[in-house]
């Protein structure tokens, strides 16, 4: 779920930001090679943070599924309802115990696969995002005189807006899914949805608070 929230928000905010900068701050835009590289470094840093957040979200989902049970994150199929009695003329009318066992095994394998996918995605995205961000952060430190440049302010505001909106979507969704799983009774034969937004919520909330704190600190210092 974190994919579907973060990526569209990031792209939309970036497009709006670029249009705003082009229309209003034309004089502040530095289109020299050095200025373009600075822009690229901030953009790549933001992409790195997005990638880390997606990876951490998947890792949190994997951790919860491992600690509590895969049903919490990926949902649970209904337990087989009472099998109706077969008439004497049709001894094999319903699912046999072997078929039910096979169905149960398939579902278990499917959840295990989802859990493994989350682990792999989490490790890959987190490691790649961290390396990508670190490389661009190091380049910014050596190549760019950060100070309080408009680019840095734009980068911090982009992060605050994107992760703030992602938080307002993912936190209530994840909380509701979690409470729904833990508190609400499930009728027999009813599918029990998983709390797959929890990982995303846990990942985006601290990033948003970090961006917000930095923005507020810089505003106070200005």
């Amino acid at each position, binding site marked *: 779920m974190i994919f579907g929230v973060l990526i569209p928000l990031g792209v939309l905010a970036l497009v*709006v930001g670029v249009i705003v900068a082009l229309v*209003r701050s034309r004089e502040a835009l530095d289109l020299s090679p050095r200025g373009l590289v600075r822009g690229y470094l901030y953009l790549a840093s933001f992409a790195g943070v997005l990638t880390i957040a997606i990876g951490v979200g998947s890792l949190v989902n994997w951790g919860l599924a491992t600690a509590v049970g895969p049903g919490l994150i990926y949902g649970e199929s209904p337990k087989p309802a009472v099998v109706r009695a077969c008439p004497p003329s049709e001894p094999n009318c319903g699912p046999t115990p072997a078929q039910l066992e096979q169905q149960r095994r398939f579902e278990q394998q499917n959840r295990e696969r989802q859990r493994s996918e989350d682990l792999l995605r989490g490790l890959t995205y987190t490691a790649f995002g961290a390396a990508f961000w670190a490389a661009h952060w190091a380049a910014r430190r050596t190549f760019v005189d950060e100070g309080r440049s408009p680019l840095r*302010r734009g980068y911090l505001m982009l992060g605050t807006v994107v992760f703030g909106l992602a938080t*307002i979507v993912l*936190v209530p969704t994840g909380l509701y899914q979690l409470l729904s799983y833990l508190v*609400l009774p499930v009728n027999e034969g009813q599918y029990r949805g998983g709390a797959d937004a929890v990982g995303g919520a846990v990942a985006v909330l601290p990033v948003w608070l970090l961006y*917000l704190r930095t923005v507020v600190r810089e505003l106070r210092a200005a």
Partner: protein
Amino acid sequence: MIPFEAASVAVAVLGTLAVIAVFVVRGHEIGWELSAGAMFTLYVRAAGLAATLVFAAGLAEILRAFLVTELLPPGYAPMRPSPPAEQIVRGATLAAAGAAFWGVHYLLPRPSVRGGALLYTAFVTVGAAAFGAATVATLPAAIAHEAQRLVGMQPPPRLEGALGGGIAAFLLWLGHLWQLRAQLGGGPGGRLEHTLAVEP
């Protein structure tokens, strides 16, 4: 019928983009600059509106749950299969998260920027438009639906629960109108007595 949430979110998103566009293109006429403080103020306004939308969605869910179970005349069963407990949990979560998100932004330091009060009024107007559109799109049909049920007719099931969304939209619309009236100087106590958006 357009659901309350879809109508309010669509109008709010379009309104926010329109406000940003107007301030970016014509803001210099009132001395508004694209400074760090102005960008932050813009963000706080947009986040306050987003929080209000989430709170409204939660309120609508809670109202739907109680209206379906409490206000039905004897002999009429709710047609929606989802149990009210699920709606109450969803509604309470959304309302609490929306209120918390709004509160965080309310407590943030707000830099004094030129045109800040106008920006605030613009976002209250966007909120009023969003909830007004949602009210118009939802409430009349929902009332007609309930009236049909009260007189014993079989109402269309697609409108089941629309009354909760309509009432939530109506309440927030009135709140925003009240705030607009106070902003424009006509209300008792002057501006910012009762705020739904984050104060400047």
